[in-house]
């Protein structure tokens, strides 16, 4: 097993727990904005088990994207560390779905979807099969040769989701991936994501503002405080799998958990808007 560590390294007193996929310890991140330091994350710690589905909710600007980017290795933390375990070096460790979609305008839909595979030298025949599969799953079969400017916002988002899924990483980092989708496509994609996650034993980090999405997807739901982002609460999701969106809404546990999360989230959102003292 390969350990990928953050800049600060592994602390000596950490005890070894084999099923921890991502270990986040004392993570702090500040940005220099002009002459000021903006603290986006403060002393955040979280252990994520292999195969776990974590959903992160929190007020806008609380540091969710920042956290995901550091976990993905795209940004460096100011303090603390992130240790990720890479089980199969032949597979990518993590892949990100960006909040801005970031679909390459200069590649067709199929070239976008196969990008990760092509870059790491997966043979063409194998790529074709994967692209076909995801064009179908994402409802984009007629658009294989289209360029992103010919697609709607929701379609572009599906391309960016397909590009990440096709890359088949051990850790999927998803930053509000369904935000631009219509309700119907979202329902389909929620099921697809759940299926891919459970079949391929991925570890998932998923940011959303929708408690519905959170309750359908999550093993655990992490609620973050207003900036500087810390963990306000962590909820275990007791809803049994497989979960169908119309069925779990009738489960009494659904309403109860929703209300509990919302109680905490509401306070943090008000604080982030300056309507309550921090």
């Amino acid at each position, binding site marked *: 097993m390969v350990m990928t560590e953050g800049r600060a390294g592994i602390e000596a007193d950490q005890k070894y727990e084999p099923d921890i996929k991502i270990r986040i310890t004392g993570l702090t991140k500040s940005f220099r904005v002009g002459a000021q330091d903006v603290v986006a994350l403060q002393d955040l710690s979280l252990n994520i088990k292999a195969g776990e589905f974590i959903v992160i909710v929190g007020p806008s600007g609380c540091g969710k994207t920042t956290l995901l980017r550091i976990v993905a290795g*795209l940004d460096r933390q100011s303090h603390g560390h992130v240790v990720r375990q890479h089980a199969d070096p032949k597979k990518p460790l993590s892949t*990100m779905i*960006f909040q801005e979609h*970031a679909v*390459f305008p*200069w590649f067709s839909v199929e070239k976008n979807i196969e990008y990760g595979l092509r870059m790491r030298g997966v043979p063409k025949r194998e790529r074709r099969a994967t692209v076909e599969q995801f064009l179908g799953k994402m409802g984009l079969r007629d658009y294989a040769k289209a*360029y992103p*400017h010919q697609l709607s916002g929701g379609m572009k988002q599906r391309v960016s989701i397909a590009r990440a899924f096709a*890359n088949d990483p051990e850790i999927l980092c998803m930053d509000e991936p369904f935000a631009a989708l219509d309700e119907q496509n979202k329902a389909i994609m929620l099921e697809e994501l759940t299926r891919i996650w459970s079949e391929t034993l991925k570890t998932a980090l998923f940011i959303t503002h929708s408690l519905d999405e959170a309750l359908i997807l999550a093993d655990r739901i992490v609620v973050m405080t207003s900036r500087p982002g810390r963990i306000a609460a962590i909820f275990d999701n007791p809803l049994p799998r497989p979960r169908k969106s119309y069925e779990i809404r009738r489960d009494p546990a659904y309403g109860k958990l929703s209300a509990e999360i919302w109680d905490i989230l509401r306070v943090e959102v008000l604080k982030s808007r300056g309507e309550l003292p921090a």
Partner: protein
Amino acid sequence: MTSRSTRFLNIVSPLGLLVIWQLAVQAGLVDRRMFPPPSEILTTLFHMAETGELWINLGASLWRVGAGLAIGSTAGVTIGIIMGLSPLVRALVQPIISATYPVPRTAIVPLFLIIFGIGELSKVMVVATSVFYVVIINTVTGVLSIDKVYLDVGRDMKVSRLQAFRTIALPGALPTIISGLKLGAGIAFLVLVVAEYTGSQTGIGYMIWEGWQILDLDQMYVGLLVIAVIGWLVNLIMDEVEYFAVPWHRHR
């Protein structure tokens, strides 16, 4: 307006101008010694085509423009992308470019005659230098304007530097690079004609200059007409190049 009617107007409007000119001369409204009618210019044109004089001059000019464009744009794109990707190289090279850019391209002709002699090389290098400036400036701008999130996707997918160059920096900057090439092609003809006025015995610029010197205005106008037509053709060709090289940026 549809693209077909736009194209139609693009052809009709210069032709219309020629017709008005012809009629104005025939009606005695303008001095035909200064403005010989288009029919007369065309006759001269056909004559020069027959004697081969036209083709020799045209060939000489096209060769110089072609060589200058090739050298100037290759250097401009390559150095431009490196500058765009490397803040260090940018910090070193940018001041030199900014300081020399305001010098009018045609003002370097005498200097280049001294450096490269009065042969072909001086003309090609004048063209290459002019093209180089617009292309490098556009290329740097193009690379710098690529949204950072695309480079993040590359990093997230663990791409190599060469892959990032090929799949992100180059295609990302290509629309701007091609605008630079279009500008460069226009400027190439502009400076070439001036370069051919002096120290040259061939070329369309020489034809125009000689026509003026020996007061053969028909020949001068033939030169001007040929330059206009070529400029127009080059524009059309560059539009086609853009259409096929940048399929994700099609305006028509």
